């Protein structure tokens, strides 16, 4: 199986002098190209920092990140931007959308940057995706005129626009009610089964239980891992129990 992302002995620190602290303290991680993984851990354990490091959004102090056979620490800001725009998708907890643009414009924004001539095609693709996640009637709405769940669906559409190789999600259901959260997870599972790798950062056992591999972090290190069958089926409750048991076992 090909690895889409490889993190090798990543160290990321904040602060200077005696106040310097390693947020990532020699983390090594590998994600397969069709894998659905999640990272769990208490606040400050470094899980979001790991995601920012693996996606090239944040530099690292030492170690190495390889994305699709490209060493991210060896390439410049422009190429990093190109990779993020064309090969990665992102979903954040808060709807990271531009206030000035309507929903459709926000969704097509990253893809239309170099492809203005294909605006029609791009808009068509966006509409198809919006229909798929059930927000097709919202395209002209302002972002302040829709609910958090709807915004998050729009965020997923945006992440999918360039047919990325991986989707990074930082607490994508963190701001949603349980009904909306479940629907978002359904969409993400479907995307994964269609062949896109997904890496989620979460502190919610219900979300983690939907993924096939869970990495547990504490104090900047991956302290444990839990593997689950890829297909969720009807066993969601037992999967949640397993996750909770593991959390209790390692004390997070």
């Amino acid at each position: 199986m090909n690895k889409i992302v490889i993190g090798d002995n990543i160290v990321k620190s904040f602060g200077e002098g005696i106040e310097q602290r390693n947020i990532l303290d020699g983390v090594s991680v590998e994600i397969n190209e069709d894998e659905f993984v999640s990272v769990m851990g208490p606040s400050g354990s470094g899980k979001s920092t790991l995601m920012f490091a693996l996606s090239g959004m944040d530099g690292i102090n030492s170690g190495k990140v390889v994305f699709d056979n490209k060493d991210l620490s060896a390439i410049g800001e422009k190429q990093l931007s190109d990779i993020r725009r064309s090969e990665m998708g992102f979903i954040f907890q808060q709807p990271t959308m531009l206030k000035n643009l309507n929903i459709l414009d926000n969704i097509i924004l990253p893809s239309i940057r170099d492809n203005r001539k294909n605006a029609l095609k791009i808009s068509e693709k966006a509409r198809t995706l919006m229909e798929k996640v059930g927000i097709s009637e919202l395209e002209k709405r302002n972002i302040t005129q829709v609910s958090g769940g709807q915004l998050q669906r729009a965020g997923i559409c945006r992440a999918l626009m360039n047919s990325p190789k991986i989707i990074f999600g930082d607490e994508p259901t963190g701001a949603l009610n349980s009904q909306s959260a479940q629907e978002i997870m359904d969409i993400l599972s479907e995307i994964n089964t269609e062949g896109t790798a997904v890496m989620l950062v979460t502190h919610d056992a219900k979300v983690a239980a939907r993924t096939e591999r869970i990495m547990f972090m504490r104090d900047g290190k991956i302290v444990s891992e839990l593997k689950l069958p890829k297909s969720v089926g009807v066993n969601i409750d037992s999967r949640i129990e397993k996750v909770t048991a593991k959390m209790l076992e390692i004390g997070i």
Partner: protein
Amino acid sequence: MYNRIIRNDILKSKAITLTTVIFVAAAAMLVSLAAILVINLTGALDTLMEKAETPHFMQMHSGEIDRHRLTAFAEQNNNVEEYQVVEFLGMDGSQIILGDNSLTNSVQDNGFSIQSEKFDYLLDLNGDIINISDGEIYVPVAYMKDNTAELGDTAVISGKEFTIAGFLRDSTMNSSLSASKRFLVSSNDFVEIKDLGNIEYLIEFRLKDYSKIGEFETAYASAGLEANGPTVTYTLFKTMNAISDGLMIAVILLVSVLVIAIAFMSIRFTLLAKIEDDYREIGVMKAIGLRLSDIKKIYLAKYAVIAAAGSILGFILSLMFQGVLLENIRVYMGESENAPLAIGLGIIGILLVFLAIVAYVNLVLKRFRKISAAEAIRFGTSKEKKVGAKRFTLSSNRVFSTNIFLGIKDVLARKRLYGTMLLVLVISAFIIIVPQNLYNTISSKSFIQYMGIGSYDLRIQTSDHEKTDDIVQTIESDSDVSKYAVLTTKTFKVKTSNESGENMKVELGDHSAFPIEYSVGRAPVRDDEIALSAINADEMSKKVGDVITLINEGKEKELKVSGIYSDVTNGGKTAKAVFTDNSANVMWTIVCVELSDKSFVDSKVLGYSSEFDFAKTSDINEFVSQTLGSTINSVEIASYAAVAVALVITTLVTLLFMKMLVAKDRYSIAVMKAFGFTNSDIKVQYVSRSVFVLIVGIILGTLLANTVGEIFAGALISSFGASTFNFAVNPLSAYLVSPLMMISMVLIATVIGIARAGQIKISENIKE
């Protein structure tokens, strides 16, 4: 606690705070300077006119004079306190050599007088009445100012040598607007040179009650006394003395109003941005029960510190710069007795600036009342925001690149925010273009039409009526002359509604040879027609077609007004007619000459000058530039200064706005970076924003400059006598160079202002 909050806040936004302080300082400096100048100007002017005992009424007269009749009039009129006749020995500039400089090219009427006996004294630079010895000469201070003469130089007047013993202040003829300049010599020397020039008389009166000057003027005119020359009153002397510094003060005040407006806008912009940033905190403070006034105090205190620092800095700067600006007043009028008062008023001026800023900040902070604590804490932003330009969408955009689209969209979506920047740029474009157009207009050849002068090559002016025929004969036989016209100016009495008479200068001759532009109507053609200058028509309330009555040799002559024209010469009060008249005294005659080959102008001027040494021959361009030269020069300097000021303002404001925007938009920038937009993408977006605002600003500014600005400039010019006024625009500088300069400064300022955007870390700004 306030100290700490203010200190931290200022340290966090050094550049923004500094820019705001600079604007406040500039505004405070200008207000304080204006106050200091006004007090010094009025004080120095009063001192000068008191010490010199300026006449209340002065009638200049050339020709015969009946002193008995004048004395009798003065004795009979019970408002007359003192009366005297001063002799003014007019001499051609070529006869006057000061040190190494000859006054040949001077368009001033230079002349010599002795110290007056009763009043209208000529003062030295200490403000004392000059006592002059034989062999000495005192030179008008204007010639010291332009470095024509130096103390101790030898002056040669028609071959007689004098030593320049000093410079004099002349309360009646000091001003550059006054066409005559008086030199002072001793009585013995005056007698010696008396035959070398033409004597004119200054008939001067001091009145017991100046408020009745109107009555006195009428009495003088109706007594039919000597009146072959201009009449000037005390008020006009005062205005003429004050006008050049007064104009400067007016310009300073105007600029200070603009700078204050800009300072206010910058404050408003930074304050609104800060409030938006602190929205959640303000909500929390409200929620935990802090009073509105307490919250306000935190913001108010910071701006009070900024305003105080700016005002004090501005005041110090104004004290440093006052010397330069007061120099003119000091040289021409002397020290003011009110100097300490000036400092006081300067302080009051900056206090007003300070209070205005505090009051303004208070006003802006009123919106705190509208902030809902619950909404602020939950959303961290105001929900009332409306997004504009809904139809301008990325999905339907086919014209702009994505980055340019995003830049323009942001401007359209946040119109109020960019409106502030737009206003500043409109003002900047306005203050770049208007003075430039004004300079271009008054320095262009077509401006001559506002002077009431036709288009010819050279003019020969003489007051010696008997020799006019000599000139005409020479011109007539000169084969290089293609056309000429003789225009004679005489004074006539005009019958007014209250049956008293008023004197009016009428230029007689063929006005069709060198036509001028008429704002209404046309040139006089028939004997019973007359054209009036705009100011004359206005004062006499006459329109084209109206009739005015001239009194000619005791007989009344009715003339129909055929046209009205602009004239900025002779105080703007002139008239033109074609009837022949042999009665009234000739004031002066001008022979207008057009040459078949323009390249002869210089040699012809030289030739005629030496042939007619009793007359003044000038190249018409030279004449215009000397008459209006100092005005053109000051407008030129003002236009360059305006360009510099406007560019500095443009740069500073753009820098300030861009820094503020980047600080405000950290989140959006992080989002775009997360989704693969590079730093250069972000740069293009911000540059598009400022260039878009700038283009709108330049267009609006140019439109305003050519409409409102033209009206302003026209009002200024019309006070000198021009009736219609159109800008002569130099398209290259107004529509290409100026916008290019603004665009370059805005681009540089934008790129510097958004440098921080490159350092914004995605993780720090969107991490949960």
